[in-house]
């Protein structure tokens, strides 16, 4: 069983959903982001999403854009991102790691080579925002061969007739984009989410993560209850940005503040468990 499937199964046994915090690789530098990555499981991350910085993140809001720019300035490359995952795997063999980003750097690296190297580094799944199933053939073969899941996004605009098609290309889990918009802007209401999820459940048995606009512990608990996981990205990156000094460098507050926010989110998500871990 893959790490992703194993983790979702274990959480289902506890009767709770997952918390998936996001960090942007090399934001604001390699050392800090690696330290954050390594500390995330202890702070309560059930799965981890790592953003691969791209120069033109057209589906992202200002907070993730700024994080990507910081990451690129600090020298982020895909080689460097995979190297971070390898370093993380030295101490953690079980927490699933998903890489999220845009297709061009991966195409530039080479799909086959990237999937092989990512799997070797200990990556479990990929989300390429601008690679819809219509164009995904280039990735699907190499990813399957390497044992990587391709996590598919589903949006409120995804039509009923399209839903089955999209989900037939999904593995690992499904990422429900809870709003029509870019990351870190508005939030969906619990009512919207409750109305939206049955549509997905009817078509897939995969776990469903909810993201875009999940910011507070309450929202995370809701999303992890209505769905199977809550993804929190912009809220954490905004906190990280606040702790940087006027040169954009990490301060002594950077790690403690981001990690304490993850702890608060995790506490709320874990409180929804039927049986404590």
């Amino acid at each position, binding site marked *: 069983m893959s790490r992703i499937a194993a983790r979702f199964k274990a959480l289902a046994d506890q009767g709770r959903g997952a918390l998936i915090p996001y960090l942007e690789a090399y934001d604001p530098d390699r050392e800090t982001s690696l330290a954050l990555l390594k500390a995330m499981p202890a702070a309560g991350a059930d799965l981890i999403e790592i953003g691969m910085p*791209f*120069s*033109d*993140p*057209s*589906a*992202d*809001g*200002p907070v993730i*854009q700024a994080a990507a720019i910081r990451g*690129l300035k600090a020298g982020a*490359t*895909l080689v460097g991102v995979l190297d971070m995952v390898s370093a993380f795997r030295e101490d953690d063999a079980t927490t699933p790691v998903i890489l999220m980003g*845009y*297709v*061009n*750097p*991966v*195409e*530039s*690296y080479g799909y086959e080579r990237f999937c092989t190297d990512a799997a070797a580094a200990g990556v479990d799944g990929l989300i390429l*925002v*601008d*690679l*819809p199933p*219509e*164009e995904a053939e*280039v990735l699907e073969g190499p990813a399957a061969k390497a044992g990587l899941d391709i996590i*598919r*996004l*589903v*949006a*409120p*605009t*995804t*039509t009923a007739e*399209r839903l089955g098609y*999209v989900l037939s290309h999904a593995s690992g889990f499904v990422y429900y*984009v809870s709003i*029509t*918009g*870019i990351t870190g*802007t508005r939030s969906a209401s619990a009512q919207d989410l409750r109305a939206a999820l049955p549509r997905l459940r009817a078509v897939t048995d995969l776990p469903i993560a909810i993201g875009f606009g999940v910011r507070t512990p309450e929202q995370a608990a809701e999303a992890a209850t209505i769905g199977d996981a809550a993804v929190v990205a912009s809220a954490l990156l905004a906190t990280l940005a606040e702790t940087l000094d006027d040169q954009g460098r990490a301060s002594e507050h950077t790690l403690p503040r981001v990690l304490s926010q993850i702890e608060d989110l995790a506490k709320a998500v874990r409180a929804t468990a039927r049986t404590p871990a």
Partner: protein
Amino acid sequence: MRPQQGMIPWGPNTTAGGRAGTQGGEGAVELVMVNPTEQAAIPRGGNSLQSQPDGKGHFGGVHGGRFVAETLMPLILELEAAYAKAKADPAFQAELAYYLKDYVGRPSPLWFARRMTEKLGGAKIYLKREELNHTGSHKLNNVMGQILLARRMGRTRIVAETGAGQHGVATATVCALFGLKCVIYMGATDVERQKPNVFRMRLLGAEVVPVTSGAGTLKDAMNDAMRDWVANVADTYMLIGTVAGPHPYPAMVRDFQSVIGEETKAQMQAAEGRLPDVVVAAIGGGSNAMGIFYPFLDDSSVRLIGVEAAGHGLDSGKTAASIERGRPGVLHGNRTYLLQNADGQIEEAHSISAGLDYPGVGPEHSWLHDIGRAEYVGITDGEALEAFTFCTEMEGIIPALESAHAIAHTVKIAPTLPKDALIAVSLSGRGDKDIFTVAEHLGVTL
């Protein structure tokens, strides 16, 4: 992915009909508006170069496509269906023909540039006068088509990106004409260097949003326009100004711009009784070039030359020549030649012309380059400035800096060709917007 050169020559015709073609202008002396309904009835042959893209929006199986986030996928599928329906609808084509004639001012003349020809001492040079269109460039051809489509789709809010501001002005113009809300994204750098166009757009009732992300130029404006669209899907139509973006934009914009080439073909027949030997056009995203090339794609005797902005020079590191110095990659919804670094991060383009200052190019050009049907060359900022002055002095026509790139290449090749050779140059826009830039480079204070 590398382009598979030579592997996919003129592929099978998988689109329904493609855009049909050429105006039956043989022997026609009087130029009439193209009747698109007649064209739509002519099916394209299986090996026609006009049969691209395929059903997935791929040109030659590699370039183009639909690389967008899932939130936008259903919208571009809806757009594709709506456009296919409109294209086949005589009422839509008649409506478009009406506005092109009475509002845009088509057909535009094909001007024999006599003094330029005599001075250069070679081929006969004809200028296709797209700068005489309303709003001063070829941009309105496409914008008019798309705004009629947006109205058919019931959209009430239009967003667009703009570089030099020509597409923004054209879009703001039709929004004023039809009373639609208009939001234009423009890089903060461009807002600063194109103040007259910013003021024009605001006069026309558009909201101009300066984009500060990235370097604050056209690529960043495109990112923010896409972000706006994704956040306002219910009422908003994204009106892309060039032959790039996710399918169906490259094919649709090309179709709307093809009126340039169709008229050129008929006008050259009327003037010279034959086709031109060479067609030259400047390329940023490549919409005026695609518009003038497309009707000639199957006329193998016609050389097609796309002129990219070399900026400070093709190998200076400060260039906008995506085909000559880029490699295929994915940006803004399509796969095409892009200026990018070894890690697949997109690089900033550099050109004196804000309209050519883009690190990509339309995917159909990438394909035409791969199969060798069109040639792509570079012209530097300095060469474009010289051509700007040359055209102004010789013909009394102040060309846009974009168009000056096409003229500069014409100046290079005309003397090398026999006197009976015919060159058609797309004069895509007028240069009024560029006088401040040119003055600065000539050391003149206005």
